[in-house]
C-alpha cells in the first residue's frame, strides 16, 4: 500500500448546499488500480440537524452530500466519524467501481456511487464535499489521505 497524496488542513462549512472542502490533486490512478481514500469528519452542536458529506472524482460528483450516504445523526450534539472510499480506477462496463463506508457515533453507512459514473480516465483529483442541515451547526473534514495498492 502506497500513500499517494493527502491534505491535513481542516476545512469547515455551514453551507446548506454542497461545497468542496478538502482536495487531493495531482494523482495518477489508472483504470483497475485499487485505491483507498479516507478522511475524518465532525459536526458541532447548535441545532438538531445532521451534516452530510460526499465526494468528487476529478470534476464529477459521484457521491452527492444531499443523498446522505456519509452522514451523522441529527441529535443536537457534537459528533465525529470516519469515511473510507474503496475502489479501483474505473474500466469499461464498471464505471462505478467504488463504494463508501462511513460511521459517526451510532450511525453507519455502506453504499455505492449514488450520483454519477466515474469517467473512464485516470483519476487525478479526489475532493470531499459537504453540507449542513442547519446553518447553526458546522461540518468539519480533515486528514484526507489517498493510497494505492500494488497489483503485481
Amino acid at each position, binding site marked *: *500500500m502506497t500513500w499517494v497524496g493527502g491534505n491535513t488542513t481542516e476545512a469547515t462549512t455551514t453551507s446548506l448546499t454542497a461545497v468542496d472542502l478538502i482536495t487531493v490533486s495531482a494523482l495518477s490512478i489508472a483504470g483497475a488500480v485499487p485505491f483507498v481514500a479516507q478522511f475524518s469528519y465532525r459536526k458541532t452542536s447548535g441545532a438538531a440537524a445532521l451534516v452530510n458529506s460526499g465526494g468528487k472524482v476529478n470534476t464529477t460528483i459521484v457521491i452527492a452530500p444531499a443523498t446522505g450516504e456519509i452522514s451523522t445523526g441529527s441529535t443536537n450534539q457534537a459528533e465525529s466519524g470516519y469515511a473510507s472510499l474503496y475502489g479501483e480506477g474505473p474500466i469499461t462496463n464498471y464505471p462505478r467501481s467504488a463504494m463508501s463506508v462511513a460511521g459517526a457515533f451510532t450511525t453507519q453507512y455502506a453504499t455505492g456511487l449514488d450520483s454519477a459514473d466515474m469517467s473512464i480516465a485516470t483519476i487525478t483529483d479526489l475532493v470531499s464535499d459537504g453540507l449542513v442541515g442547519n446553518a447553526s451547526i458546522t461540518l468539519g473534514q480533515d486528514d484526507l489521505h489517498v493510497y494505492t495498492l*500494488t497489483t503485481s
Partner: protein
Amino acid sequence: MPPLFGAMGMSRQRPTGGLFPILVAPPAAAANAMTWIGSQTTEATTTSTTEVDLLSISALSIGANTPFSIRFMYRKSAGAAATASSGLKLNTTTVEAPGVGAIPTNAINEVESGFAVMHLHGTSSPYVRPGLIYSGIAGVGAPLGGNAGLATANMPAAPITDLVSLGLVGNPLITLGHDEMQAHTLAVS
C-alpha cells in the same frame, strides 16, 4: 539552508568519543504492510440462476492468523427487474453464499456497477468466521450497500489456497459480471 545530509537521504551522527562526524544510512524503511498475492483480471459473467464460480485466484498459502483482503468489481446488465447476487468461496467452502445479501444489487431493470471489499483473517480457533464484507453498487436508481460478516459457513482451516467469487442472477435475462479481483496479505510484524 537545506540540511546537507538529509537531502541525500542520509543523516549525520557524531559517535560518542569520536573525533569526526561520520555518515550513516537512515534506519531501513519498514516493509510494505500490504503484499499483493494474486489477481484475476479477466472478466467472468453468468446468467445462471444457481450459484456458479466466477473469478478465482489459486495456488495461495495464507496461514492462520494472517490478515488478508480481497476486492473485485461487479456489475449487472439491464434486461429484467431482478437482482444479481455475489458471494465468496475459500478453498472449497462457500463462506458467503450469493443471495445472503452482503454483495447485492437492486432489482431495478437497469445497468449497475459497484465494488466489493472483504477483510479476512486466517482462522484460529475459536475465531472461525473472522471476515467482514463491504459492498456498494448503483445505477440510475438508488444506491445499495452491503455490510456483513460471513453468514454461510466457518472459514476453512489454514492454509487458504483458493479464493473464488460466486454469483447468480434472479432472472436469466440479466447478466452478472465480476472483474479485476485483487488479493493482498497484511503484515503482522
